[in-house]
């Protein structure tokens, strides 16, 4: 153990339990770090102990905040990321130096791609050993510079709490994202009595929230003149808490709404104006709508290539209005004819006010409805064939509330979940979009569980491959008695890879068969969770009911049709309007 394993507070024994706990004075850097988090309103943290971070954990010992010890740091960063998505406020993860910090990296990169608010605190070797390749030393700020919104190397005990406050504020403001503070052990251990001040973003960071009125009026007249308008809602709509403004805008002006994957839930998918998700595995009608529109109102999206398909054929005849808080996203991938820099909610409200008339688009709306009829989302369910994954997703949807939260791994199961679940509320779809990280689902469910209300159901749809990557976190769910249902859509393949091998590599299944998968129901029982297994259609409903009724973590191993594939599909770089409905159309 390190030199400072216990805390010594002279007055700690005298504290009476029925009085409101008085705040202890800060006596060292680590306590200042913890105080900064408390000041920021943090309730939960996710992490794993270790030498260089021990002073911070020691300070946490006396804090009201709840620390969730994860089985692996990667899960700590995913849990914090999901916590940020569901709560809207930065999730916090901690790790020790070296391997602890590098294990956080995947989750930090994931949060960065999806602009999720998150703060990571990493221990570091003592300052005088930095640069010497000391035991468990990694250049953490160097490693994470390209995948954080801001990162900090703390070098002064008196200000370390202020730095944490600033990092927290940075993660939450403007275009959200992950920040990191690297904490050398001598800095956290050294004495200080300085209380951190309120967390503020640095003077050089002033994102524009109120858009330029001229930009708004130019955009408004372009949109008012549209014959075939479409709204493309991106994840920024949810991040900016602008879903109400979006709905009002769309409904008032009767403009069909397409979402990107991170924006699923931003607009109710059962609304007649909803075209649901566009892109590689988006609906046929969404992809038709974005291909044929003449004006696209894009809000808070970075035009990822899984959305756009080939740039040359993306909305090829549309004038683009692009609302974004980050100027660098505007005209990065798709040129914006009408840039509007600002907060999504504010910009939508201004645009709403500036619209002289609503677009004259009756024919277009009718066309959009026709596409919905022409390209329905459907799947085959012959009773004598193996279970279809889409059926499982729909069966869960049928018996749960609108505010049920879905998390996923990455692969086919993720796509079936997003396609066959009808999302109606923001912050109920928690998935790894930009980075596409297998293993995201279970730790994300743990983060979501703690951020959600107790009456919200949490379901994680997993692939067998994805689940295997982080299933050790079942131990955490069991230990802390978390009510989570894991639905493994088990096809004994890393299915998305097999699908691509079938389509593009002549069916050569190189390293994609997972025939040696464990029996997940038994594994769940070994962890102390409840395990179920389903092979037949007629077991589905009852098992779902039993798993949801079980108070604690449960795992259902659904043995699904191993040959099931995800369609529609736009081949990478192809035109969205040329989506394939089956393999022979690729």
């Amino acid at each position, binding site marked *: 153990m390190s030199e400072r394993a216990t805390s010594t507070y002279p007055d700690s024994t005298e504290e009476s339990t029925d009085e409101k706990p008085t705040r202890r004075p800060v006596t060292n850097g680590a306590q200042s770090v913890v105080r900064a988090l408390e000041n920021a309103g943090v309730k939960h943290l996710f992490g794993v102990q270790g030498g260089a971070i021990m002073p911070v954990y020691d300070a946490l010992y006396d804090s009201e905040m709840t620390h969730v010890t994860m089985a692996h740091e990667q899960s700590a960063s995913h849990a914090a990321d999901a916590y940020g998505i569901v709560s809207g406020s930065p999730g916090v993860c901690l790790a020790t130096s070296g391997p602890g910090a590098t294990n956080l990296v995947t989750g930090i990169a994931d949060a960065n791609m999806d602009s999720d608010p998150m703060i990571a605190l990493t221990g570091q070797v003592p300052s005088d050993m930095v640069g010497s390749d000391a035991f468990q030393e990694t250049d953490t*700020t*160097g490693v994470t*510079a*390209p995948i*954080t*919104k*801001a*990162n*900090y*190397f703390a*070098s*002064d005990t*008196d*200000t*370390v709490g*202020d*730095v944490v406050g*600033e990092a927290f504020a*940075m993660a939450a403001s*403007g*275009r959200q*994202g992950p920040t990191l503070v690297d904490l050398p052990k001598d800095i956290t251990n050294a004495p200080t009595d300085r209380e951190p001040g309120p967390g*503020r973003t*640095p*003077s*050089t*960071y002033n*994102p524009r929230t109120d858009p330029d009125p001229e930009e708004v009026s130019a955009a408004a007249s372009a949109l008012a003149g549209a014959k075939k308008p479409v709204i493309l809602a991106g994840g920024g709509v949810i991040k900016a808490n602008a879903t109400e403004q979006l709905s009002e805008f769309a409904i008032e002006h009767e403009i069909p709404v397409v979402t990107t994957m991170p924006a699923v839930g931003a607009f109710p998918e059962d609304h007649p104006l909803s075209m649901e998700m566009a892109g590689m595995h988006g609906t*046929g009608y969404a992809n*038709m709508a974005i291909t*044929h529109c003449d004006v696209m109102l894009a809000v808070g999206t970075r035009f990822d290539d899984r959305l756009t398909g080939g*740039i*040359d*054929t*993306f909305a*090829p*005849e*549309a*004038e683009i209005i692009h609302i974004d808080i*980050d100027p*660098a996203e505007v*005209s*990065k991938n*798709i*040129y914006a004819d009408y840039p509007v820099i600002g907060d999504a909610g504010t910009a939508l409200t201004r645009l709403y006010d500036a619209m002289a008339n609503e677009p004259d688009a009756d024919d277009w709306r009718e066309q959009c409805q026709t596409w919905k009829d*022409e*390209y*329905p*989302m*459907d*799947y085959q*369910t012959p009773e004598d064939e193996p279970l279809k994954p889409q059926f499982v997703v729909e069966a869960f949807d049928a018996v749960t509330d609108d505010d049920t939260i879905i998390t996923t791994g990455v692969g086919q199961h993720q796509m079936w979940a997003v396609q066959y679940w009808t999302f109606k509320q923001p912050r109920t779809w928690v998935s790894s979009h930009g980075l596409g990280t297998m293993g995201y689902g279970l730790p994300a469910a743990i983060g979501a569980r703690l951020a959600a209300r107790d009456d919200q159901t949490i379901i994680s749809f997993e692939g067998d491959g994805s689940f295997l990557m982080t299933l050790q976190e079942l131990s955490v769910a069991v230990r802390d008695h978390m009510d989570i249902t894991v639905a493994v859509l088990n096809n004994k393949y890393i299915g998305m890879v097999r699908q691509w091998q079938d389509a593009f590599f002549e069916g050569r299944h190189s390293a994609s068969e997972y025939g040696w998968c464990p029996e997940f129901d038994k594994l769940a029982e070994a962890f102390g969770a409840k395990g179920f297994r389903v092979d037949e259609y007629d077991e589905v409903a009852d098992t779902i009911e039993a798993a949801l009724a079980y108070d604690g973590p449960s795992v259902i191993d659904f043995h699904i049709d191993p040959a099931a594939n995800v*369609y*529609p599909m736009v081949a990478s770089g192809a035109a969205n*309007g*040329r*989506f394939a*409905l*089956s393999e022979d*159309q690729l």
Partner: protein
Amino acid sequence: MTQGLQGPRPEERPHPEGRRNAQGERIDPVQEAKQETRQATVSALVKHEPGVLSLVSGLFSRRQFNIESLTVGPTTVDGHARITLVVEETDAGIDQIKKQLAKLKPSIAVGELGTDAVRAELVLLKVQGHEPDKVHAITQMYEGQTLDAGPRTITVQITGDQRKIDDAVDAFRQFGIIEIARTGQTALARGDTPTTPGESPAASAESTASETQNSSNTQQ
């Protein structure tokens, strides 16, 4: 039993005629617009703190921007530094470079310099010392200075805009250049125009505790 996905096959669907170019701009589908690159000088006023330069160079390598030269040095304001970058990119690329630079947390202001800006570069040239008089004559012609002259080598310094430096290097070739070190271009806007928008040299650097005491890196 339901049917699975239905709908017209890809080739049976209507498709728009329009196209976009690699920069995502709508273009005439018949004549493909080829984007030309141009040279731009970008000036970034930044907080002078550890890690800034690696942040900037990391940004350039990560985003595959083509960088010609980069110079950096302090300004009159304590705690501020100016980074001057010469890049060769399309208009869209230059726009993106400026926006990405502006996103870095230590970055205070970013501007692109006009063609009339004042630019200079410094080069040190070490040439063979066989013909000292001729070397001296060329050095004078380019208003340079001799920094070191020995029996075997002569080292001179030339400053000026890129064209002058290129010409001088050419002129010295006849003596046999042994070594060369160029600083890369640095530049300021001409006259009253601030080099980066809103820049006022009189203003003193504000500093927060974290900015003076802790190094930091940022991307939005």
